[in-house]
C-alpha cells in the first residue's frame, strides 16, 4: 500500500524501491522495511504521503559524505500502535555539496528540530525553515566551516589529537 501510494504521488521523482522482508523468531514471521530512493525535489511530497496513514514517527535522520555529493537518509515508521502492522520506510536522496539545502521538516514534525540541528552541525546541511540554528552537541565556540562527518578539506582531521 505504501509503495503504490508513493509511486503515484512521486511519479518520475521516485528512482527505485526495494521491499525487504525480515523473518524473525522460530516461526519466521516477517516484517517489512521499504527502501525508497528519491530525487531531492520529491522529498516533501514523499513525507506528506506518509501523513495519510497517521502521524509518521521519525526514527533517524542521518547523512553521509559520498565524495561528490551528500546523501541524506530519513527513516520513518508508519502504522505503529497496531500489532505486527508497522512498516519502516527509508527515504534516501543525494544533494549537491555546493548547495546543500533541503526543506526543514519542523513545520510538520516539530520534534525533527533535534535531528536537523545535529545533521546541520555534523555534515553542514542547511535546512530551509529550521528556526533553531544553535549547535546541538558541539560547543558554542565551534569553528565555522568545520564539519566532523565530512570527508573533504572541511573535516576535523587537523583537530584530532592522536595518542599512542
Amino acid at each position, binding site marked *: 500500500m505504501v509503495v503504490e501510494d508513493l509511486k503515484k504521488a512521486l511519479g518520475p521523482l521516485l528512482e527505485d524501491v526495494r521491499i*525487504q522482508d*525480515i*523473518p*524473525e*523468531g*522460530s*516461526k519466521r*514471521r516477517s*516484517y517489512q*522495511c521499504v*527502501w525508497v530512493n528519491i530525487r531531492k525535489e520529491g522529498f516533501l511530497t514523499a513525507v506528506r504521503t506518509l501523513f495519510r496513514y497517521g*502521524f509518521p*514517527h*521519525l*526514527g*533517524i535522520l*542521518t547523512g*553521509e559524505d559520498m565524495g561528490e555529493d551528500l546523501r541524506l*537518509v530519513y*527513516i520513518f*515508521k508508519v*502504522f*505503529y*500502535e*497496531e*500489532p*505486527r*502492522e*508497522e512498516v*519502516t520506510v*527509508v527515504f534516501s536522496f543525494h544533494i549537491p555539496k555546493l548547495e546543500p539545502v533541503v526543506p526543514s521538516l519542523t513545520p510538520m*514534525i*516539530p*520534534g*525533527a*528540530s*533535534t535531528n536537523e540541528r545535529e545533521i546541520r552541525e555534523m555534515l553542514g546541511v542547511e535546512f530551509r525553515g529550521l528556526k533553531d540554528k544553535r*549547535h*546541538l*552537541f*558541539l*560547543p558554542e565556540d565551534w569553528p565555522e566551516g568545520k564539519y*566532523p*562527518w565530512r570527508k573533504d578539506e572541511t573535516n576535523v582531521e587537523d583537530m584530532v589529537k592522536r595518542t599512542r
Partner: protein
Amino acid sequence: MMMTTTYTYSLPIGPIHPALKEPIRVVAEVEGERVVRADVKRGFAHRGIEFMGMKRNAIQTLYLSERICGICSISHPYAFVKAVENAIGMEAPPRAQYIRTIIAELERIHSHILWLGVIAHEMGFDPLLYWTWKGREMVMDLLEYLTGNRVNYAMYMIGGVRRDLNEKKIRAIKENMNYYRQFNQEMKDVFMSDPTYKARTRRVSLLTRKDALELCAVGPTARAAGLRMDIRQDQPYDAYADMDVRAVVPQDITGEVMGDAYDVTLVRLYEIDQSIEIIERCLEDLPPGPILAEPNLIKLLMTIKRSEGEGVGRHEAPRGEVMHYVRFDGTRDGPVAWKVKAPSYNNINIWGRVLVGAEIADIPIAVGYIDPCMCCNDRVAEVRRGGRELPYEEVRRKCREKTMRIKREVMG
C-alpha cells in the same frame, strides 16, 4: 497605587547538579516559583562514538556500541547486531534469538527498578531509593552469573550470542523470577498507595498524546501519554515475534490517561510484570540448537567485507526505541556509515513542553520522568554577572511567607 514589575530569572540547572545524574544543562526561565520557559543544552559528553566506529571493524564497533550506555548496555549492541544482520542478510539461530530476548528483558527489569529508585530520590524519598535498589541487586547478580559481568555483558555477537544457557542457569533465572514477582507486588503496593508519592507525581510534567507524537517521544514516556507504541508489539523481532506482546498503557491499568509522572510510574511497574512473563515464556519454549550462525569470526568479518548494503536495527530498550543504521560498501570490514539514535535523544525534546508551568521543586521530577540517559562530556558552565541580586534577609523572609501560606492552605 504601587506599580509592580514582574521579573523573570534564569535558573541554570546543570551540567553538574545534585538533581541530575549525568551532565546536561536545563535553563529554566522562572517567574516566582513557576517555570515560564525552558531550554536544554546537550552535548557535554559527546564523544564522537559514531566517528570512532566508522574507523573500526564491525566486531570492534559492536563492543564500542556496548559502551555507549552503562545502564542499557544490551540495547545498543542489540540494535547494532540487528542492523548488521539486516544489512548482510544473516539470521541468528532460534536459540540465540531466545537468549537475546531473555537478556534484554532482564535488563529491562533492572533498568526500571533503577528508575523507580531515582525518581524516589528526586523527590527526597531516600528510604524508597535504598529499598528499591536493594531489590535490584538480585537481577544484577543474575546477569553477572549468566554473562560474567554486571554491566557491559559482551553477550551478543553478529549472528547470535556468545554464551549458552545450561540447566543450572535456567534454574537460577526461574528462581529469580519468583523473587521479582513478589518484589514487584511489594513495589506496586508502596508506589501506588503512598500519598506522598501520588501528591508529588500526579499532574506533574503532563504530556498530551499530541505532544508525544509531535515531539517524537518514544518508550514509556510515549506510552504514559496513551500512545500504544512498542516495537515488541508493532514490529516484533527475535523471540518477541513468537509471542504476542502488548504495549502497557495507563488506560488499560487505571482506565484514564493523564500522561503525568504517576502514569509513567504505572507503566514501568507493569512492564516489570510483563518482562517476567516474557522471560518465563522464553524459558518454556527455548529451542535447542546452535547459538551462532557463523562461529568463525574471521570468516564473519570476511563476509562483512564482501557485503554491500544497508540495514536498520531496532530494539525496544527500557527507555524506548533504540535505532541503529549501518551501511557497508564492500571495501572494509566495518561500517562506512553508522548512526545511533538513543531513546533519550527524542525524549529530551519534551522537556521544553512539560517544564512550562511546573514549579521549581518539580523540575527534578520532570527531568527524571523520561529516565534521561545522556551520553554526553563536560565543559565549564559560564555564569555571567548581572541581573538583580536578592539580599539574604529578603530571601529568608520570602521563604517563611511561603511556608506559612502553604501551612494555612493545607491546614485549612
